[in-house]
């Protein structure tokens, strides 16, 4: 397995391989650590591990983290916070029979009291139904913060102006789909 000096850069340059490496390298120790430090079962520990990886990924993609030498230590820090959130949500729910999928969505999405949750879920399904290339284009621009030039190159558009026009049309399609 490659051991890069800067994991953040590795994730940006080769996200699939980097995430796969992080997953394999830290899976056992992370799950063991969660189980030893909480009363979570294996499945919950695995969920928290997977969500933590996604959060790590987002923090890197969004540029919140640009230098990351010890990816394991950073992943465990995220995991600790997610574990605390997990307990807060369970405490709030006031019963243990909580659906793990609901819990996972809440942990991933943060504040569950957001009034717009239903609306955002509608938008999410609209984004999913956009399909390629609109979904990819919008995610590349608004989530991955790729420039129009980068998008044009990656998605084989003539130039950045074409990418810009396509992007606008995709947003308008999305507006129509969810409204």
């Amino acid at each position: 397995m490659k051991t890069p000096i800067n994991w953040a850069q590795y994730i940006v340059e080769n996200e699939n391989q980097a995430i796969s490496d992080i997953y394999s390298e830290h899976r056992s120790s992370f799950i063991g650590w969660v189980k030893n430090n909480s009363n979570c079962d294996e499945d919950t520990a695995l969920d928290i591990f997977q969500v933590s990886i996604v959060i790590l990924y987002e923090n890197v993609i969004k540029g919140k983290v640009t230098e990351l030498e010890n990816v394991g230590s950073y992943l465990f820090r995220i995991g600790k916070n997610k574990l605390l959130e997990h307990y807060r949500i369970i405490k709030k729910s006031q019963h243990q029979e909580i659906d793990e999928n609901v819990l996972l969505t809440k942990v991933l999405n943060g504040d569950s009291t957001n009034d717009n949750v239903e609306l955002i879920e509608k938008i999410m399904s609209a984004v999913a139904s956009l399909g390629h290339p609109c979904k990819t284009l919008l995610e590349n621009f608004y989530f991955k913060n790729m420039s129009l030039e980068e998008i044009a190159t990656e998605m084989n558009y003539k130039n950045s102006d074409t990418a810009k026009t396509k992007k606008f049309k995709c947003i308008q399609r999305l507006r129509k789909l969810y409204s």
Partner: protein
Amino acid sequence: MKEEQKLELYQNIIDKLLNNESLSELEMQIVKNDTDFQTYKDEFNLLNEGIRRSALQTKLAEVKALENKFIPASANVNKPSNRRKWFAAFGIIFLVALAYLYTQINKGGSYDKDFLLADNLVPFTDIDGTRSTDKESKVDAYGFYNKRDYKNAIIEFEKLLKIDQNPKHKFYMAVSLLFVNKFEEAQDILEDKELQNYKKVPVNYYLALSKIGTDDPKEAIQLLSNPTIPYPILDKKRKKMIRILSR
């Protein structure tokens, strides 16, 4: 201005704001005074959040799919057909080992310690009856072990033992060390008091093998002569090894 042109202008302004780019005078005015722009911006913020969560959901699905790499390894190890294969392999290796030993002894030479170690050690997950790979956290270590990739098995057992000091893991760590001829390190583990009291695996049999590895056949004979618990599958081997070593 046509509706579409207006929306395109709004979108350009929003994109500039997101990327911290400077705005023209006209754009500044729109941001400050145009109520339609504010409505569009509020709507876009929701769209943007939906795009973000959709991207995260996709990524989470990809991350979850990585788990599939781990499941087949644990599923295969416990299949009865695999167990039968292991026992068959064990039998063949044992017969070959005996034949080789027989020819070596008849030549007048003594036991071949490397040969003894290499050919008498077999995966033991089946013999002790445990299903160690049921728990996914152990899959790496036992997966490599059963694939006879002992160098990686040792690395994974080291990690596993940091989390879980289960004597069974210690035992398989020691057996893996024997496979790569790290006899003294294996002995350190096998002589551990907790492992000595662990009756589910033939600790002393492997400790004896490690003693052969460190040129201590007398100690090996002693260990083989006094098995702490009987292991029928090893009993014949044990007795034959005593005979060979005694010569």
